[in-house]
C-alpha cells in the first residue's frame, strides 16, 4: 500500500515538476528520489510498517508474493531510469510527463500484482495500458510511432472489452467479484463460468502476447521509441504475468483440470512461433520483440504448473528477464544502426559494453552461470512437479536450443566480424551502471538463494 500511495502522488508531482523545474537533470533527480523512497517504503512494508491504515474491504491483499514482486518491478524501473533517462530526452519535449506516465504505470503494476477483486484487476490492467498507449505514440512526428500507438490502442481496447465480458460472466456465475469465491473444489463448471474463463484467458494472453494473440507485439515494439519498448517489454510484461498467475491461482486453481490442456497448447504455440520467427529477423530490435514472445512462452509454463515451485520460478524469471533485457536495450538504444550488421566489430570499439552484452544474451539464451539458466530450470521443474506434460518440457528445451541461434548471431557480429559499429558516445557512469547490472545477472545465476532467502525471510 505504501508504494501505491507514493507512486500515485509522484505521478502528480512529476507533472508539476515539468512546469516548475527548468533543468532536466533536476526532473530526473526528483523522479529517482521519489522512486527510491517508494522502494524503501515497500521493503519496510514487508517488515510490517504501514504509512496509513487503509481499510481495503478485501479488494486488495498485499501478501509476500506481491510485495516482493513490487520491489523487483520498482528496482528494475530504477535501473531502467539510471540507464536510459538520457535517451528519453531525445524522444520529445515533454520530458517530465514521461516520468509521470511511468509512475502511473507503476501504480497500475502495484494494483495488478496485489488485487483480490476482479474490479481491481480491471483497473490495474487499464492503468497500465492507457499510459502505455501514450508512451508508444510519444514520438509524434514519426509515422511508425503513430501507427504503433494506434494499433496498440485499438487492439488493447478490444482485449479490454473481452476481459470485461469475462469478468461479467464470472460475476453472473458466482455473484461476487472476489477472486477467492469464484470456484471451490466442488464447483461444477457451468457455461457462464467456462465462457468467462475463456474470455479472461484470451484477454490476458493478449496482454502478455501469447501465441494466437501475439500479432500486435512485433509491430508495436518495433514502432515505439526504443526506450519505451525497453520498459514495456520487460517490467510491464512481467507485471501482467504476475496478474495472470494470481488470477488463475486464486480464481481458477480449483478447476485446473478443465483448462490445463488449453494453456499447454498456448504455451507450445507461443514457444514455437516466438523462437522460429525470431530466427528470420534482420533488425536486433525486432528480434528482441520476438524473443520477448518466446520468453513469454516460458513464463506461461508457470501458469500451467500453478505450484510453489512455479511462484518462486516466476519471480526469478521476471527478475532475470527484466535485468537482461533492460541491459540489452540500454546498449541497443545507443547504437546508430539497429540491424545485425550494425553490431559488426562492436567488441573492438567498446570491449566493456560488448562483454556486458554477451552476459545479457547468454542469460536470455539460458546458458548456465547466468540468472536466465536457473529461471528456465525452475519453470521446467515446476511443470515436471505438476506432472503429465513431459512432451511440453521436451519441446521447451528444444525451443531454448533454437533461441541460442539468434542470440549468438549478435555475439558473432560483435566479436568475429569486421566493421565499425557506430555508437552514440557513452558516459563512464553508464558503463559503471551497466557493469553493475551484468554483475547482478551473474550473481543471481550463481546464488539464486539470495533472492529466495529474502522471499522467505
Amino acid at each position, binding site marked *: 500500500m505504501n508504494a501505491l500511495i507514493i507512486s500515485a502522488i509522484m505521478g502528480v508531482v512529476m507533472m508539476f515538476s515539468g512546469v516548475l523545474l527548468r533543468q532536466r537533470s533536476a526532473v530526473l533527480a526528483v523522479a529517482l528520489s521519489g522512486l527510491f523512497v517508494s522502494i524503501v517504503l515497500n521493503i519496510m512494508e514487508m517488515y510490517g510498517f504501514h504509512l496509513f491504515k487503509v481499510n481495503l474491504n478485501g479488494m486488495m491483499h498485499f501478501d509476500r508474493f506481491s510485495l516482493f514482486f513490487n520491489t523487483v518491478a520498482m528496482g528494475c524501473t530504477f535501473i531502467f531510469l539510471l540507464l536510459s533517462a538520457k535517451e528519453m530526452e531525445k524522444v520529445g519535449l515533454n520530458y517530465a510527463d514521461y516520468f509521470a506516465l511511468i509512475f502511473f504505470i507503476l501504480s497500475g503494476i502495484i494494483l495488478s500484482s496485489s488485487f483480490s477483486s476482479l474490479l481491481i484487476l480491471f483497473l490495474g490492467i487499464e492503468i497500465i495500458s492507457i499510459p502505455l498507449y501514450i508512451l508508444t505514440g510519444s514520438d509524434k512526428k514519426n509515422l511508425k510511432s*503513430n501507427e504503433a500507438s494506434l494499433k496498440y490502442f485499438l487492439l488493447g481496447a478490444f482485449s479490454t472489452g473481452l476481459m470485461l465480458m469475462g469478468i461479467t460472466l464470472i460475476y453472473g456465475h458466482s455473484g461476487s467479484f472476489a477472486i477467492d469465491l469464484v470456484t471451490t473444489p466442488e464447483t461444477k463448471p457451468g457455461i457462464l463460468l467456462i465462457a468467462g474463463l475463456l474470455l479472461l484467458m484470451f484477454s490476458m494472453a493478449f496482454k502478455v502476447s501469447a501465441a494466437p494473440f501475439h500479432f500486435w507485439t512485433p509491430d508495436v515494439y518495433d514502432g515505439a521509441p526504443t526506450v519505451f519498448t525497453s520498459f514495456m517489454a520487460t517490467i510491464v510484461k512481467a507485471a501482467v504475468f504476475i496478474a495472470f498467475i494470481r488470477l488463475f491461482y486464486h480464481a481458477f486453481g480449483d478447476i485446473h483440470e478443465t483448462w490445463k490442456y488449453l494453456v499447454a497448447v498456448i504455451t507450445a504455440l507461443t514457444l514455437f512461433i516466438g523462437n522460429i520467427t525470431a530466427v528470420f529477423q534482420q533488425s536486433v530490435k525486432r528480434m528482441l520483440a520476438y524473443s520477448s514472445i518466446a520468453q513469454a512462452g516460458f513464463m506461461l509454463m508457470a501458469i500451467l504448473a500453478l505450484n510453489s515451485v512455479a511462484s518462486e520460478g516466476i519471480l526469478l524469471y521476471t527478475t532475470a528477464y527484466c535485468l537482461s533485457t533492460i541491459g540489452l536495450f540500454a546498449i541497443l538504444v545507443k547504437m546508430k544502426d539497429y540491424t545485425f550488421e550494425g553490431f559488426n566489430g562492436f567488441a573492438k570499439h567498446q570491449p566493456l559494453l560488448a562483454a556486458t552484452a554477451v552476459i545479457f544474451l547468454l542469460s536470455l539464451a539460458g546458458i548456465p552461470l547466468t540468472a536466465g539458466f536457473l529461471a528456465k530450470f525452475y519453470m521446467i521443474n515446476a511443470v515436471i512437479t505438476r506432472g503429465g506434460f513431459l512432451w511440453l518440457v521436451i519441446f521447451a528445451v528444444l525451443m531454448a536450443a533454437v533461441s541460442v541461434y539468434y542470440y549468438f548471431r549478435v555475439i558473432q557480429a560483435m566479436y568475429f566480424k569486421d566493421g565499425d559499429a557506430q555508437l552514440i558516445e557513452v558516459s563512464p557512469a553508464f558503463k559503471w551502471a551497466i557493469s553493475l547490472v551484468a554483475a547482478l545477472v551473474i550473481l543471481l545465476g550463481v546464488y539464486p538463494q539470495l533472492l529466495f532467502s529474502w522471499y522467505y525471510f
Partner: protein
Amino acid sequence: MPINYYIYLSVALFCIGIVGVLTRRNAIIIFMCIELMLNAVNILLVAFSKMHHFKNAAVNASAGTDGQLFVFFIMVVAAAEVSVGLAIIVMMYRNIHSVDINFLNRLKH
C-alpha cells in the same frame, strides 16, 4: 423477465461489436464498436446485479450492488480511454490525413 433475455441481448450487442472491430476499416467506427462492446457488458452487469439481489435480498440487503458499482468504473475508464484514443487518432490524421487502418501495414517489415 427471465435473465436469459438480458443475456441474449447483451451477447448479441457484444457480437455486433466484435464483428464491427474485425471487419470495419475506419478507425473511428472500430472505436465505436469497442464502445458498443463495453455497453453490452454494462447491460449484462446491471441485469446480473438485479438477479443476485432478488436471489439474496433476504440474507443480505445490499447483495448485488457491487455489480452496479462496477458499471460506473467501466464508464470512467471508458471515458479515459476515449480521450487518449481520440488524441491518437487526431495525431494520426494530422500526419497522413486519413483514419483508414489499411494504412497500418507499414510496420510489417
